[in-house]
């Protein structure tokens, strides 16, 4: 199970971006999204379900994602989320903002 992250909550505001990014790879269900983020971040980010589902609802409400019921590989009915064009635009925006932020942080850190 790896080293438990002392602060499993992801940096505020970035969760939406991570979920959007995950969905950009292709439609997925809630569990799949959580697993993907965990795996790819090498257990650094463990998405709490208490924040994942609110985030997914947020995407739906903002029209960035659509959800429909589908059957999984294990023959289980699951709700699958799919990125909308608006969601794609939003992702690009968030990435740009994030890059800007990262660069700014990096400049501050390197200035010493």
């Amino acid at each position, binding site marked *: 199970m790896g080293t438990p992250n002392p602060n499993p909550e992801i940096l505020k505001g970035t969760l939406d971006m991570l979920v959007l990014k995950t969905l950009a790879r292709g439609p997925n269900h809630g*569990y799949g999204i959580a697993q993907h983020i965990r795996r790819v971040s090498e257990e650094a980010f463990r998405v709490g379900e208490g924040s994942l589902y609110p985030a*997914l*609802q947020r995407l*739906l*409400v903002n029209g960035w994602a659509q959800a429909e019921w589908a059957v999984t590989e294990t023959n289980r*009915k699951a709700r699958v989320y799919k990125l909308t064009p608006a969601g794609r635009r939003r992702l690009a925006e968030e990435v740009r903002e994030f890059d800007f932020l990262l660069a700014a942080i990096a400049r501050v850190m390197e200035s010493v």
Partner: protein
Amino acid sequence: MKLWNRLLLRLRGGRLEAELNDEILLHREMLEADFIRAGMTPRDAAQAAARQFGNPSAAADFSRDEWSFPRFDAVLKDLRFACRLMLRNPLLTCAAALTVAFGVGANTAILSMLEIVLLNPLGMRHTDGVMVARVRIDKIQMRRAPDSGVEFREIQSMPDAFCAAAAMENRAWNYQNGGQATRLLGQAVTPDFFRVFGEDPALGRFFAPEDRQEDQHSVVLAYAMWQSQFGGDPSAIGRKIVLDDQPYSIVGVAAAEFLFPAGAQAWIPLVLSPARLQQRGMNMDLAVFARLRNGVSPAQAVGRVNRYVAGLLASTADLAKVGYGIELDRFAVYVAGDLRGPLWLLWAAALVVLLTGCANVAGLLLTRSASRRREIAIRLSVGATRWQIVRQLLLESLLLGMAGGVAGLCMAKLAVSLLTRVSLPGRQLLALVSLNHRLLLYGVALAMISGLLFGLVPALQLLRESQTSAMVRSRRRRFQDAFVTAQVAGAFVLVVTTVLLLRSLWAVQQIQPGFDPQHLTTAFFTKPKNDPGFQDRLQSALQASPGVESAALAYPVPFDGGGLTSGFSIRDRQRQPGEPEWHGEAYFVSPEYLRTMRIPLLRGRDISETDTAAAPLVCLIDRRLAERFFPNQDPIGQQISMYRDWARIVGVVGTVRATTLEEGSRPVVYYPLVQVPFFTQSAAVVRSGLSAAKTIREAVRRTNGSVPVFDVRTMQERIGESLGIRRILAALLSVFGGISLLLATIGLYGVIAQVVSERTQEIGIRMTLGAQPAQIVAQFARQGLRAGLFGLALGAVAAVYTQSWLASSLYHTQSLDVATFAAVAAGILLLLLAAVWWPSRKASKIDPQAALRYE
């Protein structure tokens, strides 16, 4: 977008919830499956998953917040709670809602009339810049009289102030409507008439210069006329209608909203002869309207006209001597006439009722707040914020206000439909009154404001009380006293105003008109052109009709604007130098008139059958004329000239009040109807034990089927109408005054009853210590009456102001009617005493034993 998605999601409601739960459950199952694949036992896997997952319902809750409106949901919850609370206290709820309902209803109904009368006269669209010019002649106390052609020409010649001017003259035509003779009302208007009112035709065109030729009979129809006679058929343009046996071709139809003058069915071109445009003071039967040029204010236009008149008076000594002037009024003022003052008064009265109602409900809620102290304290202690508490309390009162408001709007709807049926000189105006969306909005806003108004103080007070000790009760008492004071003051003003009006009305109604108005019915008809014996036959037919005691013909009839005014002269008599011209009123009557009206014949003889058209002209004079012009001589045999020629006076009759009950009329001369055949219409006057309206219609129809009958009314109705809106004003004010008085009494009673119940223990102790019941009563009575007396004092001051306004702008009430003030004050005081005495006495009857164990 976001809101839309939210709403969409929300609409899916319960399904959404189920899907979310389902999804979270699936998540958990997958997590478990992964753990099992990693080698855990199913039991451990379930536990691990549960640990990692945390609280599933919390996850669902947070998710739900994303698509719900948390604040909105909380308000909904409060709303449900408020509804339950209202239903648990049905009596209080009903009382409060009814109070608001009445205030809001009365206010909205009256404002709907005010709107028609003041803001939006006749519901027309473009009357803002329309002014009306009327003549004033100070010498004979004539104000706002119709114009002659000269004033029209003058107003038309002021293009710097007005961009268009028009003159209008009333017309009445005989019109055959499906074989039945009717009287059609309309006007002759100059070409710019419709332009002045900013109107466009609904169909066809309005008048053009070519319509001005005498032989061009063009007519513009009112929308209603077009609908009823042509079924709204566009091909009506170019067709003809026959008015007074003369064909007129239809050139246009006015818009449906154009309802001026009220009741007008058609307009024809008005041709003013050059002579008419030059003779000032002659043929004064025009109404002159003008539209203000853009950028010219009404006041500037008035100034312009006044400057012109000043110049005119400087150059024309005769005009200056009689005090001639032109008065320019806004169209709304012209239309509203004397309705405006009374309506504002009523509106103010309704507002006072609403405010006293609010004070009353606030008092009620404060009283109830005592019993809710505990509930609020608990809610505060388990974590409710002050804002949440106040929000909930305000929501409760808003809900009460809205319930009252909705009921009030229903009441207003009812009231408006009742009011439009009231018989008034301006009834055609009131018939247009209706509730529109703006008024509904006004009513709703009023209800919500009342809700906040009566909810705020109790809410804040309740919050304060539940947070601190019972010490703040004294502040509540102060509020309650203030509310009682306000209610008593409001009630006092309203009741005093009502009583003053009723007194003046009563005094007027005691006045005898000089004839017997009971069982008299009057109806006008148009004289047929080619039927010389018609009037004789009609009178016989009327007299022969069943139930008719006596019948006569006359023109005009009393209380239809009075007799025809005219100057007169007396043979062999000259006016004294400086004496104003002799003016009198004339009536043209058939032989049975005096007997039918029961006007006493004092000397000489009545008009008789022998006074035919061919016989020498004779007349009767009334006592006023006899006393003034023949003080020490016999008027019989003297000659007087007013109409046609010298007429020999054959009799003297009693004086009659024929315009209003308050004013005596001018000297009156009665001529035989057949000897002065100048008029196109006449009236039947019938004294009958039965209702005679149908009798008259029948008799006229049998005598000549082509004669229209109109304006059928009993003499009582005519007299009632001469009292005008005062009757309605007095009736409505009585209701308002009564209600506010009732509210004040209930309010005071409620406060004292509550004080007594709160202090039961104290009363018990005092009685055990030997206090007498009388002392207990006195204590509470004193406390309650203090607020009441203060209210009376406040009300008296306000009433003095109201009354001075009333005396100056409305009717002839005494300027300071001390007796009325004192009587009303005494009456209210008695009521307050009763309201205070009842609960106080209950206090004095408290059993000390029981009281000590109380609470």
